[in-house]
């Protein structure tokens, strides 16, 4: 069982890392990845919603009739998202202003409903929690990698601190939406190359 929990947790970081492997949840991954700070905030919000929805959905999985399961899932997910929104407004107001519309939009993030449908409704609570945590942190990791590249190359800073030498002109293109797609594509390419190498070794 312990091995199974670890496996469900770690698959979210490489083998099934959601935005990069399944292209799920790439809307927020591209939109809020101009700064590492907002990427981390978004990632933490998704981790909370994903864990909460996975645990609750898994807990009620034997009572919910199949025909109304989507309505039940969405109610649970939306509740989690509104809780995040209220807490963020109360304690991290500047972050709330930056993330804005992307917080309520977590409700329709395909990763959250996807994990509910594909995993939580068929598995016990503890496995669902570990799956949610892994998938959420994997999402956060993808956002941090994308936003690090964009912030360092685009603005010359990382988490708000200057890392590039004095007088770095910046590469504004990367901070605009098309730049997000280019970075996303380059990361996908790099992942495929690395995966192919790993497979060759193991076979």
């Amino acid at each position, binding site marked *: 069982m312990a091995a199974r929990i670890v496996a469900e947790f770690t698959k979210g970081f490489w083998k099934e890392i959601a935005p990069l492997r399944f292209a799920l949840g790439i809307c927020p991954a591209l939109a809020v990845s101009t700064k590492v700070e907002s990427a981390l905030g978004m990632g933490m919000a998704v981790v909370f919603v994903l864990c909460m929805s996975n645990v609750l959905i898994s807990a009620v999985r034997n*009572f*919910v*009739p199949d025909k109304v399961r989507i309505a039940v899932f969405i109610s*649970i997910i*939306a*509740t989690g998202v509104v809780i995040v929104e*209220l*807490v963020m407004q109360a304690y991290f107001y500047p972050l709330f202003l930056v993330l804005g519309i992307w917080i309520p939009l977590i409700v329709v993030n395909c990763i959250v409903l996807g994990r509910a449908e594909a995993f939580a409704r068929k598995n016990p609570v503890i496995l669902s929690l570990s799956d949610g945590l892994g998938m959420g942190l994997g999402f956060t990791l993808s956002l941090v990698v994308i936003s690090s590249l964009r912030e360092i190359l685009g603005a010359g800073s990382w988490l708000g601190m200057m890392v590039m030498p004095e007088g770095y002109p910046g590469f504004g293109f990367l901070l605009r939406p098309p730049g997000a797609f280019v970075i996303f594509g380059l990361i996908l390419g790099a992942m495929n190359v690395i995966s192919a190498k790993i497979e060759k070794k193991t076979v």
Partner: protein
Amino acid sequence: MSLREIIQMVLVLTIVTAVCAGGLAAVKMVTAERIEYQQIKFIKEPALKRILPDFDNDPISDRIQIVTGKDSHGRELKTTFFLAKQGGEVVSLAFESSSPGYSGPVGVMIAIDPKADTLQAVAVTIQSETPGLGTRIADDPNFPAQFAKKPLSSNFNLTSAGGVIGAISGATVSSNAVSTAVSRGVETYQAVKPRLGL
């Protein structure tokens, strides 16, 4: 679909939505006060900083709420007054007033010197006017400056209505919204002044 199935679905949906609603209401109650403070701090403080004279306290903590009237449904309307103090003495009090503009309400923050009975300054807080035309009520510093340092007895209407405020050409409706909001605000202030206890 059997009757049993239907009842089960209705029951499950009712319970789930009721629990969700209850949870949300609880979180909302716990965070409401804190959210109010944050919103004032991040949205109103910039406007407050612009219009208040020098002060050494936190006007957001030193705020008082006073019932200033009733709306059309008979509910009480409250206005929040922010007190700016210098050496423990109130040097200014600021509050928000609003009036419909060209496309939505226009809000203004008004600072009044309670001792000298003068209007110290005015700043636009919320507006959704036409960019480039109506938005000049907020972007052009010369427009709100017309209200500054005038006795409260002045007529804050536009010159076309017999007042002292010159409208921005091409943005008469927006200018009028600001001057109406200020006039209303001054009226409100005059009405509640005895109750402020200054």
